[in-house]
């Protein structure tokens, strides 16, 4: 995106790549590498045979036919270990693809409770201040304690009038003492109603805190946080430079959970939508595929200050949205009413789903191929963000023209009229649509936002088919209804197959390899991809 995606800093998130990183008793199962995977697979199988693991569920993979996902709970002498489970992915042939989970070793507790289930129920009812029905019986569990060690505990939830929430209670199965309690209402009530930049209503997944509601999404697996910087540019810069940390008081907040700050509403909701798109389409769990946090900053500056703002700030925090690395996005404030830039009005940049998905996709790229942000690899980086931005838009919005519709324009909902780029006809926005007319200058990091039009058009043609808008070269696309195939080809290519310095020619070869991997040699998607690259002059 021109003027967007300025990556000033790349925060590198350090995460474990070691199989079975253990604390004293807890083992987080995250095998990296085939050997570690095989080792954990054997252990899971052995533990299932011994009864230490019991299969809770098995589900078919909705994304990859033939794959299945098993979930196992850990047991000790017939008692479930609370929070200890394993998820194993297998192929139809029974080959294990992944194993993740948390298990505990060295559990030494007496699993014979002194407190009966009936007594435990009465105790929990007293703690919660409400009676439980016949169907609600406490479960005996082995509870890993925060301070280390384990306790045999009775566990049940009570909708507590005094606490005003759904509370989970863990009481000592011998003494009846309260071991642990917490609110479990997060899946019940932390959803608010918000009005977006364009006046549309959205649900907001937020969290209650001290009588207020904060833009911390507790329903999705990662932390999805939206901070309202209230125009405090110094704090924004200090945060981006790592000088300060943002905290709860920086989160956007609302008293009645009816949100009216459109920028905060859209940044928060669209970040969640983008996570959902990646999960539902590709099974990906966020930017790093391990649910790293997603941080959005809105209102980095104040619109009324634009008259005195440094041009650097106008380009960065007014007329821009950017991924700053490490899962951090900043969405520009746009222009005050009545102001335009090059004949276009710029609204809050968070108000467009394709822009939000575009920026978050830079995070996906950062954690995968990390395409170098220069020249052709940089243009591929930008193009992949445009592709996923448009794809996310089509996923959630009805196809059409105008606001809140899925289309092949980028940013058209908030940069009016017309948006920033066209994927179906890049030349109509002054961007190259064929390799022969590519930008070869040094500006824009070697044309990362300019030459992205070439792979953008290849993607469009591979989906929709038809003729190249300028040369007339024909492409037999897979059809809009099958766009998922081309999305998966690009996703696989960028996240799994591409090296950081991929050029256009390599991108052609890699996307064709991805097409063969997914759909077979000679398949319609492979043919569509090849014809599309032919049409834009990339061989």
């Amino acid at each position, binding site marked *: 995106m021109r003027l967007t995606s300025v990556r000033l800093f790349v925060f590198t998130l350090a995460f474990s790549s070691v199989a079975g990183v253990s604390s004293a008793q807890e083992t987080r199962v995250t095998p990296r590498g085939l050997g570690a995977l095989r080792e954990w697979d054997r252990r899971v199988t052995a533990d299932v045979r011994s009864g230490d693991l019991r299969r809770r569920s098995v589900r078919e993979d909705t994304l990859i036919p033939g794959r299945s996902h098993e979930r196992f709970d850990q047991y000790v002498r017939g008692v479930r270990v609370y929070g200890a489970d394993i998820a194993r992915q297998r192929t139809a042939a029974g080959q294990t693809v992944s194993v993740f989970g948390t298990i505990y070793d060295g559990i030494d507790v007496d699993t014979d409770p002194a407190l009966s289930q009936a007594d435990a129920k009465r105790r929990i009812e007293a703690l919660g201040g409400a009676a439980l029905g016949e169907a609600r019986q406490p479960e005996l569990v082995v509870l890993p304690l925060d301070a280390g060690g384990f306790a045999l505990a009775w566990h049940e939830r009570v909708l507590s009038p005094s606490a005003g929430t759904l509370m989970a209670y863990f009481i000592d199965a011998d003494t009846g003492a309260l071991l642990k309690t917490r609110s479990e209402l997060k899946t019940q009530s932390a*959803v608010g109603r918000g009005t977006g930049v364009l006046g549309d209503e959205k*649900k907001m*997944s937020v969290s209650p805190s001290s009588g207020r509601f904060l833009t911390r999404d507790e*329903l999705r697996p990662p932390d999805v946080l939206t901070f309202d910087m209230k125009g405090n540019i110094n704090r924004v810069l200090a945060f981006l430079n790592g000088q300060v940390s943002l905290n709860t008081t920086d989160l956007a907040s609302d008293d009645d959970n009816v949100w009216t700050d459109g920028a905060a509403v859209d940044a928060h909701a669209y970040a969640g939508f983008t996570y*959902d798109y990646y*999960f539902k389409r590709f099974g990906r769990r966020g930017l790093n595929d391990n649910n790293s946090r997603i941080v959005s900053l809105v209102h980095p500056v104040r619109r009324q200050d634009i008259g005195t703002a440094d041009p650097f700030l106008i380009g960065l925090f007014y007329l821009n949205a950017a991924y700053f690395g490490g899962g951090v996005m900043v969405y520009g404030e746009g222009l005050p009413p009545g102001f335009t830039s090059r004949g276009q009005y710029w609204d809050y940049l968070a108000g467009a789903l394709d822009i939000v998905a575009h920026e978050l996709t830079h995070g996906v790229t950062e954690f995968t191929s990390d395409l170098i942000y220069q020249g052709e690899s940089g243009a591929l980086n930008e193009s992949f963000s445009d592709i996923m931005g448009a794809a996310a838009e089509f996923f959630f919005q009805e196809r059409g023209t105008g606001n809140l519709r899925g289309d092949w324009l980028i940013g058209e909902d908030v940069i009016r009229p017309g948006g920033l780029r066209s994927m179906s006809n890049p030349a109509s926005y002054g961007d190259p649509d064929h390799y022969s007319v590519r930008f070869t200058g040094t500006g824009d990091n070697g044309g990362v936002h300019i030459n992205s039009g070439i792979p953008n058009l290849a993607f469009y043609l591979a989906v929709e088919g038809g003729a190249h808008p300028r040369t007339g070269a024909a492409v037999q696309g897979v059809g809009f209804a099958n766009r998922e195939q081309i999305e998966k080809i690009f996703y696989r290519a960028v996240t799994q197959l591409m090296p950081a310095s991929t050029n256009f020619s390599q991108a052609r070869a890699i996307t064709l390899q991805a097409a063969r991997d997914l759909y077979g040699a000679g398949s319609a998607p492979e043919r569509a991809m090849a014809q599309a690259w032919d049409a834009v002059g990339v061989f």
Partner: protein
Amino acid sequence: MRFTTAAATIAALIGIAGIPAEAQTQFQPAPPVRGFLSANGMFQTTASTFTERFEFQEFVETGSIDTRFATKPSAGLDGSAGVRLWRNLGIGVGITSHAPGSQAGGGEVTARIPHPFEFNRHREITGQAGLKRKETAIHGSLLYFFPVNAKVLAIIGGGPTFFQAEQSFVNDVRYDHEYPYDTATFRGVERDNESASGVGLHASLDVAWRLSRSFGVGGVVRYSQANLPFTPADRSVKVEVGGVQAGLGVRVLF
């Protein structure tokens, strides 16, 4: 109660009794009967159904819960007494108690649960409601004693019935869901027992076969009906109670 229904039922009951047409002409005076006591094992032969739909708010959107509960024929107990006051007319009182069975699972509940992230994307779940009902009816009757012959006495009755019923209702559903929350799994329901009472009507035919001067056996067929107003969790639900009951038991005649 629709009175035409009751009248039709009485006519049917008389037909069921199979009284010969010539019984009137072959009338043989029976020993005078001043009254009777009866105790019956009762079988309610008809089923009744109630459905309820209510809405709730979750994830800033409206969801709904639909419950369907149908009773099935079931056994109960019945006792009654009557006394003849003038000529063949008398008054009586009876009490019937039974807990109707229901279809498997005690009814079915279907809930449409809003999605936490998106409007107009409800998840539908279905499960067993586990509902129960218990009915007690007190029948006040105007009786007509109809001695068929020396051995057989028919008693036709009708009048108001006071119903008292307990019915459990689904007030909420429990479900599991996990990210991405596109589906939900039924886990159970939250139920409350509610009581309601009201007055309906009944019509009955009791046929006693005298085995000795003051002891006999007999059968009774009764239709009773009322719509009782329940208010589970401040909702208003009308439930039809009663139905056609048939019973066999002992008679004491005096």
